[in-house]
């Protein structure tokens, strides 16, 4: 019984891992192939004559480092802003005697479910009126707002577990309420804060539609949009695009790897009191 059960778990885990990893692995393998090899029949799985030419081309054909810098700025600043605002919101929702708290929570959740496409036109008009098109703020502000509901909910679930006496102690020791939040509550909710930050960062890093709409100057493109510039009108250089994609994925992989333990703790918290 136990043996069968563990076998099923292993098979299920394997399916999930293969399903998740296959596209990434396939892109990685493609990035080392030549275009000729990619199109030959029968297909080859491992590169027959591995080459780094695609990577060299990825850095020379388009200003990919500039795209990456744009992405880092937009994702980094929107994440910082989002975490700051969400921490305050989560604190207010969990600690202050707010009337209609549950209604506010539900509304937050509802806002998170708006399809982005329905916001596109009003957001574009707003940014144009504010003269923010082709500036980082045109993406930082919407990304902050779009990630805020989920970040707030994640942090709120963590803040709830922090005994309120700790804040009381901090306030008596000399903190203001906001001081107690950032000196005591936030450090103690580190896994939740990291989880929220990574969610916000990945959302911003991956976002395409807004980035395409708000930035039409090449040097303001973010990575996700910049990668589309590698394709020509009639040509679709898969190995080159794959190489560019791998370059785009690497920072996120490093980020997740560094904070993995904290994120895993964060995503599973609430299930078990810890």
């Amino acid at each position: 019984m136990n043996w069968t059960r563990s076998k099923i778990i292993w098979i299920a885990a394997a399916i999930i891992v293969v399903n998740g990893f296959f596209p990434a692995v396939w892109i990685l393998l493609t990035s080392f192939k030549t275009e000729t090899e990619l199109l030959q029949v029968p297909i080859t799985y491992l590169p027959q004559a591995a080459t780094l030419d695609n990577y060299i081309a990825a850095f020379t054909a388009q200003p990919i480092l500039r795209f990456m810098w744009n992405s880092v700025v937009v994702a980094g600043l929107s994440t910082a802003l989002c975490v700051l605002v969400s921490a305050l919101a989560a604190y207010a929702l969990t600690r202050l005697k707010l009337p209609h708290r549950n209604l506010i929570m539900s509304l937050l959740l509802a806002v998170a479910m708006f399809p982005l496409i329905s916001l596109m036109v009003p957001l574009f008009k707003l940014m144009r009126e504010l003269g923010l098109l082709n500036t980082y703020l045109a993406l930082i502000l919407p990304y902050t707002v779009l990630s805020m509901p989920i970040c707030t909910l994640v942090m709120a679930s963590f803040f709830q577990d922090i005994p309120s006496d700790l804040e009381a102690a901090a306030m008596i020791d000399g903190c203001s309420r906001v001081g107690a939040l950032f000196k005591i509550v936030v450090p103690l909710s580190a896994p939740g804060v990291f989880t929220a930050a990574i969610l916000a960062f990945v959302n911003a890093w991956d976002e395409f539609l807004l980035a395409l709409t708000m930035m039409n100057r090449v040097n303001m493109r973010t990575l996700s949009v910049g990668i589309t510039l590698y394709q020509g009108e009639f040509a679709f250089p898969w190995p080159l695009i794959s190489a560019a994609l791998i370059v785009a994925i690497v920072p996120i992989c490093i980020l997740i790897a560094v904070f993995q333990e904290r994120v895993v703790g964060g995503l599973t918290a609430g299930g078990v009191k810890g």
Partner: protein
Amino acid sequence: MAQVRLKNVVKAYGSNEVIHGIDLSVESGEFVVFVGPSGCGKSTLLRMIAGLEDITSGEIAIGGRVVNQLPPRARDIAMVFQDYALYPHKSVFENMAFGLRLRKLPRDEIQRRVSDAAGILQIEHLFERKPRELSGGQRQRVAMGRAIVRQPKAFLFDEPLSNLDALLRAEMRVEIKKLHQKLRNTIIYVTHDQVEAMTLADRIVVLQAGKLVQCDAPDAIYNRPAAHFVAGFMGSPPMNFLPCQVGDGGRILHLPGGIDLNVPANRVAECARHSGRSLTFGLRPEHISANAQSGASSAPVSARLMLIEPLGSDTLGVIRLGNGEEAGEITGRFPPEAGLSVGQSLSVSLALNRFHLFDPDSGKAIRGADW
């Protein structure tokens, strides 16, 4: 050290008033204990003094300054919490130094104060540890250390010992008392444990349902309770209560089971004012003795022993006084060598000069001029 003064302090949540106008003055260097059952408002009152709860009306002054509108950090008080409330991510040293760092004290001053406090509490060897690596007693010491280093105007303790086991609780109680004797700080201490209240306090404030019932020295609280509630709450086992009828112009108390007690001459006047009335008669267990002695100050009463609870140092015996259906049951505290056995008939004597009378309607104690 400073005086803490409460003037008609009220707390209400919406229309629900939970603290009903408390007036109290805690003198500089005094150790005052708030005691009462769960939900009586003692912790709320303490948190109002700390500034952690707003007050609905009234005035709180610390060191002569009204602090109603001041946040906790500006009140210059320190608090020790029931669950210690140590910062889990900081070491013992940093826990103690946190408040001093926030007040931007020089580094060597912080070091000196933390070391001094740690020396008093014998926790210097724990400086590098995190709270999770400490035992309950050590955490409690660190929490007290964190309060001491601040050198505040007043210390507030919110049931600080209730999470400790009985042995450690007794040990820490002594520590707190020694600490107060050494530092002579103003302390307001909340507990539901009457032993803590009796042993620690200079004055005890007994609270019931958000009202101050009595504020007095421990001895007075125990021996001259102002109300039925205080008499029943302080003392273990609690005071015995029986309904009684005052007869013969205050010279006799009729108790259930056909027992008539002769009121001693010095208390006749007090009883005479209530002649003919039904009152509540109260007597502490230690004022009942198994060796019946007849005299002006004690009355022999026939009784039957219903239950025995040996405590080692004494034996508690539940006895049924007198005869008949309405005979009252009371608990007496007897020496272990009295050789009592369940079901045994005996003659007990009630110390007549120690009984208490309470108004059954208001619950207030009825006292004579000399009482």
